[in-house]
Every structure is written in structure tokens, then in C-alpha cells.
């Protein structure tokens, strides 16, 4: 079997992790006040903490990470001396090889079955977070090629690759943003308060909302049951409900996780890039991709789409580049046709949206803003839901069966899913839109003393309820969906 995590693996949802944060924080304060060279000592302390954190998953994982860090650091020096495309390709080749061997080979070999491939299955490891930190290494090489003024020491580079809040599942960071902060982090009281707030919010989203949607309130309910064990097939209503349930499960899972990561880093005075910004309020597919998994979508935009699309001036090539870039986005999630088809669908959605914009332009069509916003939102939301069906389906055959149910209108007369799950999904989805809408309203009125007073009065109640819910739900074993990528 592919090497899996050790039993004492520190993950961001464990109690031991909640003890790990204050321990490293106190040691950081100590190092800052006691040592003569606090910057170097602090970086070494954080690197040691990061390696310890990662080693709890597996020592073999740590070995791969260290080797990748050392080779990429050397490649950076090599590229900096002469930033040519040839040298950049050496770096790209190395990192793609890393991904091929440690991310895709174990999956491919398991598809090929046993026999003479069994050696691979027994010996190849799948280091957790390899896609995230390999993309960080690649962005560093691209930035060096673009002659960005970067001069990390070996310690700083290793810390950039292994920084414990981000090493497992991002956000995908960039060296120009992190390097100055590694050199001079200045956590203020506000940073710490905001960091703790984000951690609590993230835990609530991850361990309560995502967990409820994924596993349901009782066995035999939830998104996982709906996708994996629906022996009698699905009706059109079932597919829509499952699509909504899975979309929100993914959102609360990954956005919640990102909140924990960003909050942890903020406590130490490090500001990471945001990963989610109310994606389900988007009024176009293009806007959706500036709000969902933002660190990876901006990576694909900057390092794949832009160089590819500007390679040829023709419009058709720009469209093809968009589809290719989104297919790569899908492939990044894993070597499975469902991900690649999902990526292609996203690319086609973006191209269709572009075509509609062109049509608007040519025909001088001016829709009233309310129609344009509401229509855009409804179409985007529904299209995203349908694409998530392909993403989550166990294989393309299952996706085809589910789409088949969608287009047979006679199947809309009833649903097979448990009533509790349907109700819960609808309540969570509606609550999300109400809360997101109210938050936007409050942001617009944040100068108002009444809104501020209401906010202050409600905060302790909301956080107490959130903490209580987290404790109750922690009894169930929380699983992070995005960790598999």
C-alpha cells in the first residue's frame, strides 16, 4: 500500500495542534528576547517546528520535502546566475518529475493492478501536501526567471517550502510575499485576536458544517452516502440536492481549513494570501475563479494561462489556452478522468462567458443591472453545481448516470435521499446566503454605531456557540477532504 500518515500525525484539527501553536509562540517570544540574532534564531526555530510537524506524518515524507527543498534552492541559484528559458525548464522538469513520481505514479500503478506493479505499490510514498509545496517551488523558480529581486538564505527557502501552517494543504504561497515577513514578522494584538477568531471560525466551518454535510446527522445520510451508496439510483431532485450539499461541503471544508491556516500564521505575524471570498455570490464563472481556491487559481493564471495565451495572438488560441489551463487545474487534483473532465467543463464555461460578453459588446446589449446580476448569479451557481457532480462522482459512468437523471423531467416527482439530509442541506445553503448578504450589508454600514454595537453584543454568543459545536462535533472523527490532493 501507498505510505500513509503515522498514527500520531499532527493535523490542524487535533487538540495536540491547538497545544502546538502556543508552544511555538512562547518559544518564538523567548528566542526574540534572549538571542543576539533573533531573526536567524526565529527562522531556525520555525523551520525545526515545521519539520517536526511534518515528520509526525512520516519521516519518509520529510525526506522527500528536504531533498526537494535542497534541489530547488540549488536550481534557484543556477537560474539566478543566468535566467534563461533553458535553465527554467530544467527546474520545471525536476518538479514535474517529483509530482509524477510521488503524486501520480502511486495512483497510476494502483489502476494498473497487482502483479509486476506491486513493487511500486509497496514502495512508492505519496507525501501529503506534495502538490502544494511543489507549486510553491515552481513559483519561486518562475519568479527568479522573471528577475524578481529574491535572495533567500537556505534556511529561509526551506522554511518557505515547509512552513507548518501551509505545508499540508496550502494556500499556495509566493516567495516575494513571505520572505519580507519571515525576516520581520511583527504580530500585534490585533493580529493575534484576528488569528484566533479565524481559527475558531475555521474549526466551526470544518468540523461542524462540512462534517454534517459530508456524513449527515445519522449514519446513512450525507453527501458521502448519496454519492457512494445510492443503490436505487438518483432522481433529478436527488442530484441537485447532492450537488448543493457537496458544493457547500467542499466550501466549508477547504475555506474552513484555509481559515485555520491563515489564522495560525496571523498569530505569528505572518499574513498569508486569502483563499476564498464568498465564491457562491459570484455573478460569472470568471468571477467565481477569483473567489474560489484563489491561491491556486492565481497561480494557474500567472504561470500557465498568461504565458500560454500570449504565445499566439489569435483569439481561438486564447480560448484553447483557457481550456488547457483549466484542464491542468483539474489534473492537479489527481490522475482521474473526472478531474480532467471537470477542468475542461470549467474552461468551456469560461469561454462561453467570454463569448457572451463579446455578443453583448457587438449587439450593444445593455441589460438592467439587477437582471444582469441575478441572471448571472443563477446561471453561474447552477453551472458550478453541475460541474461539482463530475468532480465528486466516483467515475465518469456515475457522472453520466447522474446527468441522465437530471435531464429526465419525470424523475423530478420525488426524491430518494433521506428527508433529514435534504432539509439540512437547504437550511445550510439558505443560511449561507442570508449570512453572506448580511455581512456585505454590515460591511457597507460599518461606520454605523448601531451595527458596531450589535456586532460587539453578538460576538461572544456566536463564538461560544461555535466552540460548543466544535467540541461536540470533535467527538466524531473529522476528515479533511482536500488533504487527498
Amino acid at each position, binding site marked *: 500500500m501507498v505510505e500513509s500518515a503515522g498514527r500520531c500525525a499532527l493535523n490542524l484539527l487535533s487538540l495536540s495542534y491547538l497545544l502546538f501553536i502556543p508552544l511555538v509562540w512562547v518559544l518564538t517570544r523567548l528566542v526574540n528576547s534572549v538571542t543576539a540574532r533573533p531573526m536567524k534564531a526565529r527562522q531556525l526555530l520555525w523551520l525545526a517546528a515545521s519539520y517536526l510537524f511534518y515528520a509526525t506524518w512520516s519521516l519518509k515524507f520529510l525526506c522527500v520535502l528536504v531533498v526537494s527543498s535542497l534541489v530547488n534552492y540549488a536550481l534557484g541559484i543556477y537560474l539566478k546566475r543566468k535566467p534563461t*528559458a533553458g535553465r*527554467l525548464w530544467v527546474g520545471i522538469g525536476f518538479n514535474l518529475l517529483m509530482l509524477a513520481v510521488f503524486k501520480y505514479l502511486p495512483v497510476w500503478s494502483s489502476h494498473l493492478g497487482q502483479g509486476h506493479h506491486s513493487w511500486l505499490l509497496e514502495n512508492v510514498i505519496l507525501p501529503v501536501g506534495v502538490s502544494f509545496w511543489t507549486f510553491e517551488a515552481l513559483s519561486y523558480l*518562475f*519568479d527568479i*526567471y*522573471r*528577475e*524578481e529581486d529574491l535572495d533567500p538564505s537556505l534556511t529561509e527557502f526551506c522554511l518557505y517550502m515547509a512552513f507548518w501552517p501551509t505545508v499540508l494543504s496550502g494556500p499556495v504561497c509566493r516567495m516575494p510575499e513571505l520572505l519580507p515577513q519571515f525576516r520581520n514578522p511583527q504580530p500585534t494584538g490585533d493580529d493575534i485576536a484576528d488569528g484566533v477568531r479565524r481559527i475558531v471560525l475555521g474549526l466551526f466551518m470544518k468540523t461542524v458544517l462540512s462534517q454534517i454535510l459530508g456524513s449527515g446527522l445519522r449514519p446513512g445520510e450525507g453527501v458521502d452516502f448519496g454519492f457512494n451508496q445510492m443503490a436505487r439510483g438518483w432522481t433529478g431532485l436527488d442530484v441537485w440536492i447532492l450537488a448543493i450539499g457537496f458544493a457547500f461541503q467542499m466550501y466549508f471544508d477547504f475555506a474552513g481549513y484555509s481559515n485555520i491556516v491563515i489564522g495560525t500564521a496571523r498569530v505569528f505575524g505572518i499574513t498569508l494570501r486569502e483563499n476564498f471570498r464568498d465564491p457562491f455570490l459570484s455573478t460569472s464563472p*470568471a*468571477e467565481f475563479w*477569483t473567489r474560489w481556491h484563489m491561491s491556486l487559481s*492565481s497561480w494557474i*493564471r*500567472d504561470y500557465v*494561462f*498568461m*504565458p500560454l*495565451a*500570449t*504565445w499566439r*495572438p489569435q483569439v481561438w488560441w*486564447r480560448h484553447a*489556452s*483557457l481550456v488547457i489551463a483549466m484542464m491542468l487545474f483539474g489534473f492537479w487534483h489527481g490522475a482521474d478522468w473526472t478531474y480532467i473532465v471537470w477542468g475542461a467543463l470549467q474552461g468551456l464555461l*469560461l469561454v462561453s462567458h*467570454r463569448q457572451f460578453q463579446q455578443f*453583448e*459588446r457587438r449587439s450593444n446589449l445593455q441589460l438592467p443591472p439587477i437582471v444582469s446580476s441575478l441572471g448571472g448569479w443563477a446561471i453561474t451557481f447552477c453551472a458550478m453545481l453541475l460541474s461539482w457532480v463530475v468532480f465528486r462522482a466516483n467515475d465518469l459512468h456515475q457522472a453520466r448516470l447522474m446527468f441522465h437523471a437530471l435531464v429526465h423531467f419525470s424523475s423530478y416527482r420525488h426524491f430518494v435521499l433521506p428527508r433529514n439530509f435534504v432539509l439540512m442541506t437547504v437550511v445550510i445553503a439558505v443560511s449561507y446566503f442570508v449570512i453572506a448578504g448580511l455581512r456585505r450589508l454590515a460591511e457597507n454600514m460599518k461606520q454605523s454605531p448601531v451595527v458596531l454595537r450589535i456586532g460587539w453584543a453578538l460576538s461572544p454568543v456566536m463564538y461560544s456557540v461555535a466552540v460548543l459545536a466544535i467540541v461536540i462535533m470533535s467527538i466524531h472523527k473529522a476528515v479533511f477532504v482536500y488533504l487527498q490532493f
Partner: protein
Amino acid sequence: MTEAINTDSINVDAAKNEAIRQMTDYILKEIVRRPGVEVTPDTPLVSSGLIDSFALVEIFVKLEKLTNRRIPAAKIQPKDMDTISSMFATAERLGKPRQ
């Protein structure tokens, strides 16, 4: 001699200003197309969310045409294309005149 150089530099500046004006016009009329939105050479376009990545490629192609330079896209960072001023500075820094 000095006078000739001055005249040349004035012509270059005038051509550049005209190109910037055309680009501003293009972005306002063809890309943004929203009433009430103002675009100046220093308006952040990408970081403010005013334009998306696809539009950025269209602007990049337009920039190559207006400056008559081939710009290596792989060398460009998002911040290089964030404002009209920075785009033209980037074209001058990285672009190679077309034959």
C-alpha cells in the same frame, strides 16, 4: 545636434502619450464597458478586480500592437500589468522592437 535630440525625445513622448491614450480608450470602451467607471494611467486594473485574466491577455496583445514590440509573456509578473503606466514601462523594459 542638441535641438535634434530634443525634438526626437518630444516626438517619442508624444507617440507614447498617444499610445497610452489609445490604450485607456480601448480598456474603457472594449474591456470595462461600465458606465461611471473612470480609468487613468495609474488606475489599478488587475488588483482591483476591474479586469479578469482573459481581458489581461487581450490588453497584452493590444500593448504589443501599440508599442510595436514583442514582449516575452513568461517574463511578466501580474504587477507589471496592473496599471496602464506600468504596462508601458514593462513593454519598454522587456519588449524587443518588431522587425
